[in-house]
Structure formats: structure tokens, C-alpha cells
């Protein structure tokens, strides 16, 4: 059911997601039965992912922090209504998405950005190697420039497009998962992704040669 991506591996593959969903349902039932502390384990499990979605949509880490908390609290308050028809993860992502969209609409005209610093890990090594410069310090500077250009380009995308590209590339969700969360058809997800990629391609062509 999940679309096989030829370019990059998703963070988690589909059977793992199903397992995850089952585990989550057990925890949700416990909470619904009155064990409110059990919600903490869900927070711990998903907080980074939820934060990542919201941060990439809003590009502001302070807002993202508040909104992530807000999303979890909303989920907490309506946990009794969760029936298990979708996975908890999808449900939570939807709440996170709606929370972000509401925020973006409200503060449409007052956007300012506040980015996270990049954590240097192994995967970035390969990329940095390919950056065409001489010295290491230049490379670091180029990385920063890259991050800025990337975030610039990201912000130029409409919220709809930024959403799908974030969920696909950064969170590694499948087209089907994205269509469940966002609430449009898979076809729409695909075409939005295509448009977003072409746009970013154009914006970032100097860095992708």
C-alpha cells in the first residue's frame, strides 16, 4: 500500500508502521480507561516527529515548540474520541497539521523565521564533500548559506506544497500516508509534490549540479 520510493528510503517502512499503530492503540485504550500517565509515553515517542513537521512548516522554533505542545494537549483532550479507525500516528499528525495551518493563517503577515542549527551527522558528510570549495571553513560557510537558501526556498512554497514536501522528504511518509493525513487524494499529493520539487529545483539549481 505504501508507494515504493526509488530515490530515498523512508524513515520507517510500512509493516513497521502497522506494528507501531497496534502498539499505540494498546496505550490509547489504557489512557481511555483512565491511566492518564500513559499519555507520556506517546509524547516521548512522537514529540520529535511532531516537532519536525511543525517546525518545517512554520520555520520558527519558538512557535514550533508552543504549537507542538498545543497539538499534544489537543490530542490529550480528545483522546476519548479516538476510535482507532486510523492509526494514532496519523491522527496526531492531522492535529499537528491543523494546528500549524491555523497558526500560519492567523500570523500570515507577521512571519519571521527562527531556524535550528544543523546538527552535524554522518549523512551530511557526503553532501559537504560535494560542495565545491577549497577549505573546510569555506565549507562550513557554504553549508550555512545552503541552509539559508533552502529555508528561503521552502518559505516561498505555499503552505499546501510545503506540507507535502515536508511530510514526504523530511518525515519520509508515503503518498498514501500523506493523503490520509492531509485529506486529499493521492493524485493531488503526487502533483503537489511534483510542483514543489520543480519549484525547489529551480530555486536551488546552483547547489544541485
Amino acid at each position, binding site marked *: 500500500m505504501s508507494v515504493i520510493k*526509488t*530515490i*530515498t528510503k523512508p524513515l520507517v517502512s510500512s509493516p513497521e508502521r502497522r506494528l507501531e499503530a497496534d502498539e499505540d492503540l494498546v496505550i490509547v485504550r489504557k489512557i481511555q480507561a483512565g491511566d*492518564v500517565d500513559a499519555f507520556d509515553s506517546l*509524547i516521548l515517542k512522537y*514529540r*520529535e516527529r511532531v*516537532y519536525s513537521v511543525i*517546525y*518545517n512548516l512554520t520555520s520558527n522554533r519558538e512557535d514550533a*515548540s508552543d504549537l507542538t*505542545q498545543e497539538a*499534544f*494537549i*489537543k490530542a*490529550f*483532550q*480528545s483522546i*476519548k*474520541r*479516538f*476510535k482507532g*479507525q486510523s492509526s494514532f500516528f496519523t491522527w496526531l499528525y*492531522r*492535529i499537528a497539521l*491543523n494546528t500549524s*495551518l*491555523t497558526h500560519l*493563517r*492567523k500570523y500570515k503577515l507577521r512571519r519571521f523565521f527562527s*531556524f*535550528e542549527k*544543523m*546538527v552535524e*551527522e554522518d*549523512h*551530511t558528510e557526503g*553532501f559537504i564533500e560535494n560542495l565545491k570549495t577549497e577549505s573546510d571553513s569555506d565549507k562550513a560557510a557554504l553549508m550555512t548559506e*545552503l541552509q539559508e537558501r*533552502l529555508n528561503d526556498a*521552502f518559505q516561498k512554497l505555499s503552505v*499546501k506544497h510545503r*506540507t507535502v*514536501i515536508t511530510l514526504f*522528504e*523530511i518525515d519520509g511518509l508515503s503518498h498514501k500516508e500523506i493523503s490520509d493525513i*492531509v*485529506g*486529499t487524494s493521492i493524485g*493531488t499529493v503526487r502533483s503537489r509534490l511534483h*510542483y514543489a*520539487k*520543480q*519549484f*525547489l*529545483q*529551480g530555486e*536551488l539549481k546552483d*547547489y*544541485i549540479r
Partner: protein
Amino acid sequence: MLFGKKFSPKDDERLSHLIQLKRQEKPDEAFWDKFDEEIRSKQLAALVHAQSWYEKVGKLSILIARKSAAATATASILALGVFTVLQTDYFTGAQTTTSLTQTEPMRPAADDASAIDQPIFIVNDLHPQAEANEVDFSYGINATPSYEINALTKKSIPVNYQIIAEPKQFTAGHINFGTDLGAKVIGTWSHF
């Protein structure tokens, strides 16, 4: 017109890698410690306080979002609307569109058997924006409405009429007019 072009799989791959760099934009330990603290206290607050609908505006929007509660939703939005209108001086007891008989608090839906199957923030249509958001934006506006109209008048308007009485200035871009016919015309500039 870049958008019509196809790009090669190699480019696509490089683009993906580039975007995935954003995965590295992560907060540190200290951030998550603070996060844990903050969310804990919010959770506690959510549990401990009884939430009447008029206290927790967030709750109001949740209630309004439920499709099954359409009729009461309308009434509650109007309750807010009438409240602000009555504050204007000259407005005396006008009717609003639907009869607004009840302003009693809506009961929280937590144990309501008619709760919809889907979680409340989802709508079954093609738009990703949930219906909840449609009314989120208006309840927070706490200002007296100003019923405006451009008025062209040679007299001053009495205060209690309460319309915005400034005549709007227009110039015709390239032609300006004097007060009598046969006046000269200005050729070229506009005031805007």
C-alpha cells in the same frame, strides 16, 4: 518557465538529499527538557480545571467544528456577534438572521454519545484545512464593529449616526478637475 521541464533522476536525488538536510535541524537536549516541563504543566492544567465553554475559547472552536452540532454552532457564533453590535449607540434591538434565544453555555462534548467518529479536526472533504479553522479566527476579535460606508456630503455628520464620513479622494490618474466647468486639466500624475 522552469516548471514545464522534467528534471533527471540524478537531480531529483540530489534535491531529495538537500531537503533531507533539514532533518538535521534539530533542537538540543536542553530544549526537550524545557519542553517536557512545559507540557507537563499544561497537561495538569487541562486535567484539573473544569472547562466551561465561555472560559476556554479553544474549546469553543472545538465545539463549533462538530458537524453534528451545526444549529447550535450558528447560535453561538451569533451570540458573540450580537454582543458586540449592542455596544454601538444607535443600534437598538435589531434582529439578527436567526432567532437567538439561547445564550446558555454549550455542554462540553466529552461524554456525548453523538460524538463523530472521526477526530474533531478532520473534515471529510478535499481541503486539508479543517472546518474548525473556519471559525477559529473570528471569535477572538473583541472589537466594536464599525459599519462603514463612504459618504459624499457637504455637511458634517451628526455624531450618533456613526458612519465613517470621510469622503474618499479620487483622482482620475491623468486628469484632475477644478470646481467649475471649463477648468484646466492636469495631464499626468495621480495622487495614489
